[in-house]
């Protein structure tokens, strides 16, 4: 230890590589788009029935409800927030609607479901912004509460609804089902909000640096509250669509939906650290998952292996994205 060499060799470990600031030259969603196209080409070659308008509509219909909820979820994650209560909220609002619909009036049911969505958003927002509880903890708690309440309202049973199939199954234009149109409208609306409003800018600012956001006068609490309310309302919409599609509401509907949502949002390029992400990125993320699920079914892959494939794909797509960031940084 008293030799010259030992001391200096130890010191060499001190000088580590200098961290480089990320510089983006390639558009954020370009890599994901390439990935999606590759996926489509793969299934097109492998399956004769994949590349058809009807099949595309199948794919879009399958991702519609997740999409309607993942779009506000993207907005929340951009602001550094999470909503894990979405699955429970969908089940609760759906069951509530079905319960009152069976007692005679479908319109009362719809109204109550939307009111419940609003209430769930307000409750989540209240705990996060007024009490100051971390969003993950808050929505983990409301996840349990509303799943439980869904069981209470329905007495643990599936409730069937008749005469409410238009919302979920009508196909007004080009054979496109209503839920897909709704997803499009929600996505387009929030894309514009994120891009062209002070509220959208505030979401990015809060996620990028909450302290700095406060110091430039962003009303963070109000903005986060509004974002949770939008998420709650989207859940009500999702709940209603599922009831309409299935003709019944079950308290076990949409279990694990929060994971599908988070997967799509992260896959779409939103940063877990907040401040980064786009609505269009999330849509591409949803499509990557949707195309894969659809393609694997068409190829007749064993359902157990489908899960494995989904996991591998997610890891691959995210790695691909990291690689893009590293190539973009010089």
């Amino acid at each position: 230890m008293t030799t010259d060499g030992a001391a200096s060799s130890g010191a060499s470990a001190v000088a580590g590589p200098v961290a480089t600031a990320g510089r983006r030259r390639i558009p954020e969603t370009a890599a994901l788009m390439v990935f999606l196209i590759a996926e489509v080409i793969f299934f097109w070659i492998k399956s004769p029935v994949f590349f058809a308008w009807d099949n595309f509509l199948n794919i879009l219909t399958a991702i519609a409800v997740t999409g309607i909820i993942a779009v506000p979820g993207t907005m929340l994650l951009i602001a550094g927030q999470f909503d894990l209560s979405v699955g429970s909220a969908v089940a609760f609002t759906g069951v509530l609607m079905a319960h009152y619909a069976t007692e005679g009036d479908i319109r009362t049911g719809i109204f109550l479901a939307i009111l419940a969505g609003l209430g769930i958003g307000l409750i989540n927002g209240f705990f996060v912004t007024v009490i100051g509880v971390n969003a993950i903890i808050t929505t983990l708690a409301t996840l349990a509460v509303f799943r439980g309440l869904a069981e209470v309202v329905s007495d643990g049973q599936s409730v069937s609804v008749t005469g409410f199939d238009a919302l979920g199954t009508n196909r007004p234009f080009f054979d496109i089902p209503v839920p897909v149109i709704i997803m499009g409208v929600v996505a387009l609306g929030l894309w514009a909000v994120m891009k062209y409003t002070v509220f959208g800018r505030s979401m990015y600012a809060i996620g990028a640096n909450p302290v700095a956001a406060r110091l430039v006068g962003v009303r963070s609490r109000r903005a986060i509250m509004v974002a949770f309310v939008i998420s709650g309302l989207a859940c009500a919409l999702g709940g209603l669509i599922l009831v309409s599609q299935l003709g019944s509401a079950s308290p076990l509907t949409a279990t694990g939906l929060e994971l599908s949502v988070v997967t799509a949002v992260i896959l779409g390029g939103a940063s877990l650290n907040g401040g980064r992400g786009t609505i269009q990125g999330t849509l591409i993320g949803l499509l990557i998952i949707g195309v894969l699920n659809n393609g694997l079914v068409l190829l007749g892959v064993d359902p157990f292996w489908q899960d494995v494939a989904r996991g591998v794909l997610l890891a691959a797509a995210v790695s691909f994205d990291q690689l893009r960031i590293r190539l973009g940084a010089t």
Partner: protein
Amino acid sequence: MSFRLQTRGIRKSFGGVEVLHGVDLDAPAGSVLALLGENGAGKSTLVKILAGGQPPDAGEILVDGTAYSSLDPVSARGLGITMIFQELTDAPTLTVAENISLGQWPRRRGIVQWGELRRRAARILDELEVELDLDAPVSTLRIGERQVVEIARALSGETRCLILDEPTAALSHQEATQLFTFVRQLRERGVALIYITHRLDEVGLIADRVQILRDGDEVLTGEVAKLDRRELVSAMVGRTVDDLRRPDAPALRLSGPPALRFRHASSGDAFADLDLEVDAGEVVALYGKIGSGTGEVAEAAFGLRPLSGGTMELDGEAVTLSSPTKAIDAGVGLLPADRQRQGAFMVRPVAENLSAPSWPRLARFGQLITGRREAAAYRRWHDELHIRSRDEPGQVFATLSGGNQQKVLLGRWLECRSRVLLLIEPTRGVDVGARQEIYRSVRSLAAGGVAVLVATSDHEEVVQLADRVAVMSRGAILETLEGDDVTSERLAATAGR
């Protein structure tokens, strides 16, 4: 045992700029060496090299006569060299006892020996003659007490040389006095001490010898008893005094109430009974060391810190600003001290960073904003502030250099048309060239009628920027200097009192 830590001809460069030009240093056992110098003189780099944080480019470190070309943290520690940093480096949620042995918990077959851990902590605190609850998490302690824990930790090993980097910066007077007692105790026990400080009064109190660095060169070394304060100050400040140009006196002042005024204002422990006026068109500095309360006054003026007494007035009207949003609406802007943590949206585009507080004004119907409007706002100030970038509003903020980042954040309040601008340490971490440009921008803002308050610990900044300066220490204004009285010597002498 007569331990001795020495260096011979230490050189170090960062990015092609040499910051240490062959420095010799000598710290014998049982003696306190005070290391003095301006910001950027190279003190911190030198002691980091001693503690193994960085390898020197040339020169050697001699420990008891054995030469090393460089040290790493583990071998430095093994040789008995320990350093206490300016910022606390404890683990806030762990207890006092756990922190004292941090990284060296006594173990048997991988299992922590809690009894031994507590005994060791108790013994060290006992030696220091301090009483602290061994089981209290350190986050519950006062800053001074946490510093004691850090010292205790430094002593838990075999410490033969202790380096303290501005240890009193955040301490109250009483806590500082206690720290000096520890330093003397350690000297008696034969520890070699290297003590970095900005406060000249401390040098006389505890140091045996003093060494002054300026721009990476050793300019004065000697016995404290044989040097007077004037010699120390001029050695520290040096020739650079002549290079500092005072700003031109402000043009005719408008009559009317001051843009910003504090009357007998107090805020908790931060400052008390403070009277301060800033006129429109004037740059006033609040000069003091970190912890003297300068930044806290600026925070109070921005609604971040409630006044516990007295009043604040804007244009002669008493206001109570309870949030930054209200302050911005009242025409006040703040440039915080920590650019990365408090100021910037690092991952966002520059245009967004610049226009953030102006969003409500730039937007149609208060909400609708386009990237084009933000880009236009950015371009308005890009040339005016000499921001050197790719001139691309979408450029990510983090890719700009420190000086240019600061210019964007300054542009923020220009775009927002703030009438009162509060700047906290505006050129910290900014290189010399950009610094001058920032000063020019601030002066031209003032010429345009903005009232500017600068909270700073850099006296050269005061000389070059301020029409008037209030020198603060421990939450009170000691003296106000104006015009030609604002010199580095006067400031150093007043603040060090």
